[in-house]
């Protein structure tokens, strides 16, 4: 009993901590439930009594409406998946191929080459000139490359990777060289296979960056065919009509006159649910890798 007093907090204190954490946990998750609940509610009850955690009258009409013509949603999913996959694959390869030579102690000019990356963390040209480079100089307005290129390389990840590569014994590289392996072979068959943990971590964070990005679309995309999932959600929030302006459902409403109302409140929230679905489902499986990744990053600071 006496030992408990020193090695653990008082049971009452422990209980209080649990209560605080349970309340905060609820606070973190519950807003999602509100959105889901509204999306499954009947439009009329929502308009009458506002958003409720428990639907007064259950209805899947918002989803039926949304998927009556799902062209735009499917297309947006396609854009997001394409951009995320291409960006992550290209980005992780490029960062690893920059970080590995930097980690080599015998590489001439590795100091200036490291500074070349550092400097981008210290100073940047600001939004206006960045925008002009992409739109005027590269002519990438309304190109998917404008969604991919800006997020390809993160200086911080290059530094984290370099630290990881440095810890791989240089004897392995020497041995491979004696066996007659070239630099590409050494990187591809010795270094990178040994670095799967760091590569996977960086890939995971890069996937998240691409999946959640809407800012590049806000800057560069005006073509409906290239609207990503996040950007579609943004546009739906601003103007629910956007989602329906060119769909059969909207035409149906137009032809039916005012008899059929656009269920805007519930459809808006249903759009949000359709948009965050993959993140919510993937989160329980991937969150521990993010925590691990954070640990690897924390070693560097």
């Amino acid at each position: 009993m006496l030992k408990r007093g020193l090695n653990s907090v008082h049971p009452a204190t422990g209980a209080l901590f649990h209560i605080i954490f349970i309340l905060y946990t609820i606070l973190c998750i519950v807003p999602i439930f509100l959105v889901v609940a509204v999306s499954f509610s009947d439009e009329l009850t929502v308009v009458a009594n506002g958003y409720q955690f428990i639907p007064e009258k259950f209805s899947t009409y918002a989803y039926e409406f949304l998927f009556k013509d799902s062209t735009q949603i499917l297309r947006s999913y396609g854009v997001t998946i394409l951009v995320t996959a291409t960006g992550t694959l290209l980005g992780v390869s490029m960062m690893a191929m920059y970080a590995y030579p930097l980690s080599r102690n015998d590489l001439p000019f590795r100091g200036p080459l490291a500074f070349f990356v550092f400097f981008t963390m210290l100073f940047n040209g600001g939004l206006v000139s960045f925008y002009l480079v992409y739109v005027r100089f590269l002519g990438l307005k309304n190109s998917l490359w404008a969604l991919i290129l800006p997020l390809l390389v993160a200086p911080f990840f290059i530094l984290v990777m370099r630290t990881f590569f440095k810890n791989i014994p240089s004897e392995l590289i020497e041995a491979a060289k004696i066996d007659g392996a070239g630099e590409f072979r050494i990187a591809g068959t010795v270094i990178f296979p040994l670095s799967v943990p760091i590569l996977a971590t960086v890939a995971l964070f890069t996937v998240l960056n691409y999946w959640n990005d809407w800012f590049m679309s806000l800057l560069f995309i005006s073509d409906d065919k290239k609207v990503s999932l996040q950007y579609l959600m943004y546009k739906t929030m601003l103007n629910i009509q956007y989602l329906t302006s060119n769909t059969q459902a909207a035409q149906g409403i137009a032809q039916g006159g005012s008899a059929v109302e656009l269920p805007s409140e519930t459809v808006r929230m249903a759009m949000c649910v359709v948009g965050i679905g993959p993140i919510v489902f993937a989160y329980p499986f991937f969150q521990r890798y993010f925590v691990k990744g954070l640990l690897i990053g924390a070693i560097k600071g």
Partner: protein
Amino acid sequence: MLARIRAGGIYSTHLDAKRVNGLAYGQSTKWRKLLKFWPLYLMMLPTIVLLLINNYLPIAGLIIAFKNVNYVDGVFGSPWNGLNNFKFLFSTRDAWIITRNTLLYNAVFIASNIIVALIFALMLNELRSRWLPKFYQASMFFPFFLSMVVVSYLVFAFLSKGNGFVNNNLLPFFGMEPISWYQEPKYWPFILPLINIWKNAGYYTVFFVASMVTISHEYYEAAVIDGASKWQQAIRITLPQLMPLVTVLTLLQIGRIFYADFGLFYQVPLNSGAIYSTTNVIDTYVYRALLTLGDFGMSSAAAFYQSVVGFVLVFLSNYIVRKLDRENALF
């Protein structure tokens, strides 16, 4: 004996050859050495090109802040304008408002994130259950994974004037009138910091918990022998051990105090004009001046102002971090 002479002989002729080639020697081996590394440089090439486009070309583009950009002459052909763009910018009230908002919000964010996360981390550290702390951590970390667009939906679900949960359920419960949240500037200095904590505190908590694991157990064992309570251990051991990390983290964030979280200030207030006075920051100002108004003069002047002051702050904070703890400095 013979072998040694022979070895010596070979050695000396080698030296002679080196001396004969003397003049050209240094140059050619340097090139040969660089040439030997060509595959490594080739690997680095794609990133070099990309950083030139993404980061270095825009730096050159900062000069447009001193130009009077017009469509006829193009961006770089436009006439010089001296400091006129800056004169216009700083003669508006906006310049003061966006500077004040950016600095104050970021100061509150830095302090609140670190304090809340430290308290949570210390509390998590004391829980004896095996899987509950992991569950709490995972739930607290969750908002960090949502995009600001999603966050704007969640906030809207609570604060929407007509249907929002707060106006329909919470306020009537306390007998209060509904509030037009997206029209009233005075509430946002409280709403935005709360959302910031909600979104980011979990991230920093996980970060602190991770570094608590690295504190040596011997400190705690010695403390227990001396009869220190859990509270004393937390205050006298855990907190001081975390202080270097907290200091570095704070300084690095102060270095970025001139850069605001664009999503939080643009998406969450739904770009509502009525509340610009408490939601407009440098980043949103530059964006709106550029893409809504098409005003290259104002936006490039504000972007230049942010880049330069931002650079000075990042440089200073890193300089201090470097003095305190070399390992954690950026340069």
